[in-house]
């Protein structure tokens, strides 16, 4: 149990956590704002990297590659959205169908089950190698942090617009939204596209970071995304009330998740059991609000009566 080995692993965990934080912001859009658990992200988390790396290998510019990856993610969201709204398939099942279909699509994009890309031969934005001892403007943590700030700024603006507000209303109360003339189906598709676009962008960064795309890299992604959302909310909900800060909390949730994971690995847990451990941790965190409502009754405060009435 050498503490130095843990400390040296932490910057990598933070970088990875930030990259997954972008993915978690995507999950937040569907899970918290639209109130849909979108499982297609398990597939999208590979699609983004696959598209990005194949584009780079094909000699395209890094920004074009990442834009294409994001667009591919949005197409995934479009597919899930059409399954759900136009075909009336329950959202969870729609996501599972997309995820299954993507397995084939991802294999076709890559031509085989994995594709590597070397940071020596390509001008990548982020990489394992740029975490420690890299000059500031090349440092992966700084680059990803910049991405997150821009994404949060754009989302903050968007969800304040007429369209963004109508999207929030759709997730909060569909009946009310339709009664106010809001096209709820369109909004759900739009939200799924936005979310999966974000996930694919995160995937494209992850592919560059680890230097390869692999058909299995999205397995359990939704669980990691949810974990980041829940941890972020649990840790920061008392101090972060503003929407932009809530999104930041989600991204930081990703960092905390990967640091905890690193500590757990350092403690010597059998890594075969890691996914089981992840699933159980997320299950417990998801259960907390339910248990709170069921077993803890708070004395009623004056002025608080409003909530229960109706």
């Amino acid at each position, binding site marked *: 149990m050498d503490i130095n080995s843990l400390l040296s692993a932490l910057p990598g965990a933070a970088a990875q956590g930030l990259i997954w934080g972008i993915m978690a912001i995507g999950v937040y859009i569907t899970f918290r704002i639209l109130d849909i658990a979108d499982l297609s992200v398990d597939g999208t988390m590979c699609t983004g990297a696959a598209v990005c790396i194949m584009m780079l290998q094909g000699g395209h510019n890094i920004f074009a590659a990442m834009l294409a990856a994001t667009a591919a993610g949005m197409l995934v969201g479009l597919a899930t959205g059409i399954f759900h709204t136009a075909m009336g398939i329950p959202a969870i099942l729609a996501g599972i169908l997309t995820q299954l279909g993507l397995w084939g699509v991802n294999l076709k994009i890559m031509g085989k089950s994995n594709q590597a890309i070397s940071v020596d031969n390509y001008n990548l934005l982020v990489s394992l190698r740029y975490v420690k001892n890299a000059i500031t403007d090349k440092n992966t943590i700084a680059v990803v942090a910049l991405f997150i700030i821009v994404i949060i700024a754009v989302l903050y603006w968007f969800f*304040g*617009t007429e369209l963004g507000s109508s999207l929030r209303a759709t997730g909060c109360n569909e009946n009310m939204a339709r009664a106010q003339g809001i096209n709820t189906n369109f909004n759900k598709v739009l939200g799924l596209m936005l979310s999966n676009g974000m996930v694919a962008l995160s995937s494209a960064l992850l592919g560059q970071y680890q230097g390869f795309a692999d058909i299995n890299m999205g397995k359990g992604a939704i669980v990691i995304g949810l974990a980041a959302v829940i941890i972020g909310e649990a840790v920061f909900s008392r101090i972060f009330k503003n929407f932009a800060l809530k999104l930041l909390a989600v991204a930081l949730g990703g960092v905390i998740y990967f640091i905890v994971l690193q500590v757990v690995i350092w403690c010597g847990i059998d890594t075969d059991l890691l996914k089981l451990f992840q699933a159980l941790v997320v299950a417990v965190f998801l259960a907390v609000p339910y248990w709170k409502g069921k077993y803890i009754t708070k004395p009623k405060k004056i002025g608080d009566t409003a909530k229960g*009435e109706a």
Partner: protein
Amino acid sequence: MLEIKDIYKTFNAGTVNEKMALKGLSLTLEDGDFVTVIGGNGAGKSTMLNAIAGVWPVDGGSIVIDGTDVTKLKEYKRAKFLGRVFQDPMTGTAATMEIEENLALAMRRGDRRTLRGGIKEKERQKYKEMLATLGLGLEERMTSKVGLLSGGQRQALTLLMATLKKPKLLLLDEHTAALDPKTAAKVLETTDTIVNRDNLTTLMITHNMKDAIAHGNRLIMMMEGNIILDIRGEEKKKLTVSDLLHKFEEASGEEFASDKAILG
């Protein structure tokens, strides 16, 4: 203003639970009519309102609002003609959004949602004034989440949202049924004020015969998916609860069974 012609609706067709909820219902409302709707459970009152609102398509017949045939229009597209308040106070508002955000959503009913700001500064002043007319102190809580409001406050807010942009037709589906008597009376008073002020064409379902008689210029009674009684003008003004019960027995050939309708 509203012309319903011969509409039919059957739920669960072809199953043991098949229920013909509307059987060739026709109804015409004049501009400015304030119609109260009564009838027992399962008479088709809410079904009629949902048919007008387009919650699902009807099986037959046509619905015309102010000269526009809306029979085939989707619910969200019809919304531009309609203001709606529901029985459940939770249904009419977005609980996790602020009071002013809810109002801003309602202000844009029927408009295309663009990428412009969701709420403008000069709107806030207007909302503040409108909220003040409710007399609930909500104008001081514009940025509070609607989920923090009581049922009565939420219904009053929903009513304001439904009429913020003047609707061609206001649909009230037992909007006071879930409230305590005092709050219900207050919300009904507000309803009267708004309807009279804007001269709104209104359909109001109620379980309370006294309310049905006291409000509006016209009263219809429904049974088994059709209108069995239509009283208006002078005749309506003179109407009493016992008249109504008597007329019900006459029209239907049976006693009015719902205690709630009599006592409520």
